[in-house]
């Protein structure tokens, strides 16, 4: 059982609504997982407080006193009504009319309370619960062909789309210019550019770096997190009403939440998860559903719109073919690093040594050695560009959350004389446990 499943089952578990097998699975997970266990304990504390606060016995029902008072008040109202009639008869109709207008206004004010941001969000959470499918289209400042999660504040917007089916079988597809990934219920494939492919022979929920978009499409969870943040800040959120051109009134909720995680300087604002953002949500008045959202990144004292949800469709019919991805015949498959006969030598390398060895192999055009540091075979054009390179200098390796590996600053002179300066990304969280290049070339 995964943490998310456990989390979803906690209330049914506490309320004894699960069958023996399901309850045993939750119990076992709670015994094994400290995070879920502490979550459960915190909820237990809350439940105990709620039970204690609700433990008020009714010694004597209020029904008799309430009904007596209602009847007495009604009698008074009838007397007042008769008096009002008399007043009208005596020519005080103007005063009575003014009183009536005042009363009507008071009642109207009483009945039309301002809808709070929390109520709007809660309604939208409900409206997005138990979806069968969702289609989401957003525009995002990102480099085409780069990672799905890449943010680039200086780049123009490109479209990113997600088709997702939750029920009856989880299937999905994500597309951005130069990169597409799909999961058809049995296997997961990704095509980068026109020929680099990655395949996992199993269904996956959010592999590669697609997690952020899958989380964004889980509208009920996104809005529940916002609601939780609002609750923690005392429900202090701006809400405005707007009317679109077609006279459909919309709610605009402005949610401001700062990133609270410690983020590495190098990767600050490179992903949504490493950015300080202000988020603006727009809801449909009739259905209560989320219709769009804007994410502004806060940087250097200004705000930059980095992502906008421009289309959101709930429960549309999706064809199975939508989740199939046809790979080109000349695809170059990503290969997971396997242990080498002399793997120990590479396993012991520091990030700086691995970068040095990789660039040296490129300089010698020793592609067999280069392959020990890469997960795809270099194309002819890459070999032409990197072959014969000379290292000008390598800097001090550094780490930056959330990337699990290391960055090695480098300056190299290519065989055509061009100088390239960047950070080589290396990681060793693979079965061979040796550093391989993960970007930055």
């Amino acid at each position, binding site marked *: 059982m995964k943490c998310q499943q456990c989390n979803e089952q906690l209330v049914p578990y506490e309320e004894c609504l699960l069958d023996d097998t399901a309850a045993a699975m939750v119990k076992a997970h709670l015994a094994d997982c400290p995070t879920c266990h502490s*979550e459960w304990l*915190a909820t237990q504390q809350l439940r105990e407080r709620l039970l204690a606060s*609700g433990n*008020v016995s009714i010694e004597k029902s*209020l*029904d008799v006193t309430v*009904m007596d008072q209602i009847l007495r008040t009604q009698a008074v109202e009838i007397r007042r009504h008769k008096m009002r009639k008399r007043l009208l008869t005596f020519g005080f109709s103007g005063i009575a009319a003014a009183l009536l207008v005042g009363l009507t206004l008071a009642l109207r004010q009483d009945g039309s309370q301002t809808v709070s941001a929390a109520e709007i969000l*809660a309604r939208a959470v409900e409206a997005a619960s138990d979806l069968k499918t969702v289609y989401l289209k957003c525009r995002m400042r990102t480099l085409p062909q780069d990672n799905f999660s890449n943010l680039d504040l200086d780049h123009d917007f490109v479209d990113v789309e997600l088709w997702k089916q939750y029920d009856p079988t989880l299937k999905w597809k994500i597309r951005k210019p130069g990169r597409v990934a799909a999961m058809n219920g049995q296997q997961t494939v990704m095509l980068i550019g026109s020929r680099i492919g990655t395949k996992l022979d199993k269904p996956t929920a959010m592999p590669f770096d697609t997690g952020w978009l899958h989380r964004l499409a889980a509208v009920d969870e996104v809005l529940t997190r*916002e609601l939780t943040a609002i609750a923690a800040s*005392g429900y202090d959120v701006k809400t405005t009403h707007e009317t679109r051109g077609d006279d459909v009134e919309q709610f605009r909720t402005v949610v401001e939440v700062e990133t609270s995680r410690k983020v590495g300087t190098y990767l600050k604002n490179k992903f949504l998860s490493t950015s300080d953002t202000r988020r603006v949500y727009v809801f449909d008045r009739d259905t209560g559903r989320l219709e769009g959202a804007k994410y502004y990144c806060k940087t250097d004292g200004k705000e930059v719109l980095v992502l906008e949800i421009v289309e959101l469709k709930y429960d549309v019919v999706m064809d199975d073919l939508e989740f199939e991805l046809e790979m080109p015949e000349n695809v170059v498959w990503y290969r997971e690093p396997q242990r080498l006969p002399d793997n120990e030598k590479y396993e012991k390398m520091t990030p700086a040594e691995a970068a040095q060895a990789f660039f040296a192999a490129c300089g010698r055009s020793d592609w067999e050695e280069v392959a020990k540091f890469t997960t795809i075979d270099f194309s002819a054009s890459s070999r032409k560009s990197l072959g014969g390179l000379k290292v000008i200098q390598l800097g001090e390796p550094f780490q930056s959350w959330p990337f699990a590996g290391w960055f090695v600053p480098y300056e190299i002179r290519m065989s055509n004389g061009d100088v390239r300066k960047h950070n080589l990304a290396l990681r060793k969280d693979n079965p061979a446990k040796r550093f391989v290049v993960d970007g930055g070339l």
Partner: protein
Amino acid sequence: MCHSDQHCIEECLNGRPDAFRHLVVRYERPIMSYLVSRMGDREAAAEAAQESFVRAYFRLNTLKKGDSFSSWMIGIAQRVMLETFRRKRREENLSGADTPVAPTTDVGMEDHSELAEAVSRLPAIYREVIVLRYFGGLSCAEAADRLCVPLGTATKRLSRAYRLLRAALTLPDGQRSEA
């Protein structure tokens, strides 16, 4: 709103006030529990609960079809309670008393006002399920039945209500979600 609540309300609106008695009996415990939690004084809570039911009766025509009676009642009870506090403050100001105006807690009675306030600030759909489950003493299944929603929906709402309450109360062991 459940048919039985709706039926009682329609009866009242059609000139048969006695049907309101069923609603009082059905909801007096959640309303009393809520008010005792917030006011800390059983006697004052009983007076406020009585006033709340009477006001609710005369405003039944403003309750929109489909809205939950229990959640609506909590809103009324909250307003009555605040008026009671204001009236008390005025009286104390007039008498020159130097005593605090915050709700007092009866001897032997635990102070649940912070929790009750957090409940009152929940969005209506989450507040009503908490009110029925904990202040009304109903089981989850009974609360779902009363709200006319599937059991799964009621448990999800309860789960979300817990998250919001924990965030609002900043319970020490709670992991606050990052938005």
